[in-house]
């Protein structure tokens, strides 16, 4: 800044001050330049960080959308699974109900068969009884065909039998009385 002649015009103190100020100005100027360079680097880093942040936020938002879709799919799948489980449960209940119904039908069938068997037995007994009665009736009819029919009870027969005092000479009354007694005795034992 100063020529040698100009510089020589300064006193020793002024010369020292000149040198000091000159070095200070140079140092300050250097520091300012360094700071400006530092600011440029910081701004570059800042821009890069902001870009990274923006990229990551974009990716995060995309992932959030994917996650929301997955969440919806998951919820729907859970609902479907629950519905399917309910359906399976209902089927199991239906099967159980059918099983019980079948058991009830089988029990009813068994009861019906038992009743039919009982009725058959009763019918068979009734038929046997009827056959026996028929047989007895036939026997009775045969007996009636061989013997005269009397519409009197044994007691009446006895009462109506001839008195000893009115004894007749003929044996016909005696024979009839004996026959009536025999028939009465037979009928009595049959009852």
């Amino acid at each position, binding site marked *: 800044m100063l020529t040698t002649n*100009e510089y020589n*015009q300064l006193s020793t103190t002024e010369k020292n001050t000149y040198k000091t100020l000159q070095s200070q100005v140079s140092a300050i100027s250097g520091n300012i330049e360094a700071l400006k360079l530092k600011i440029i680097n910081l701004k570059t880093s800042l821009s890069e960080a902001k870009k990274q942040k923006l990229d990551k936020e974009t990716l995060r938002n995309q992932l959030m959308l994917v996650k929301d879709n997955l969440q919806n799919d*998951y919820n729907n799948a859970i609902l479907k*699974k629950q519905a399917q489980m309910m359906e399976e449960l209902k089927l199991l209940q239906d099967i159980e109900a059918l099983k019980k119904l079948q058991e009830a039908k089988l029990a009813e069938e068994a009861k019906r068969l038992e009743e039919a068997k009982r009725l058959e037995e009763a019918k068979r007994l009734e038929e046997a009884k009827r056959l026996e009665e028929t047989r007895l009736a036939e026997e009775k009819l045969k007996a009636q065909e061989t013997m005269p029919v009397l519409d009197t009870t044994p007691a009446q027969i006895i009462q109506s039998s001839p008195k000893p005092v009115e004894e007749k000479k003929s044996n016909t009354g005696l024979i009839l009385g004996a026959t009536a007694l025999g028939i009465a005795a037979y009928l009595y034992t049959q009852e």
Partner: protein
Amino acid sequence: MKTYMGHFGQTIDIVDDLYNKKTLIEAQISMLNNEISALEIKITELTDGISFAEQEIIKLTSSYNTTNSQFMNLVNTAKTRYQTWLNAMKNLSISSW
């Protein structure tokens, strides 16, 4: 529930598969959130650093102006003195003729 065959021939339940995928995505989102938080801290630090450097430049510029002013005053003083001395020398040589 419907299932499908995996890459290794295993049967994969769709509900389980969706849950696993969702969990994986959630982990990735969580990781990204952490990275974004770290970047936000870094951005704040960088912004603060820039502001600090700009403030320092303002201070240094002020200091530079003051120091340079003092320096220029001294320079001007020296130049004035030299010019005065030079004029004096010229006058002296003229008068000696």
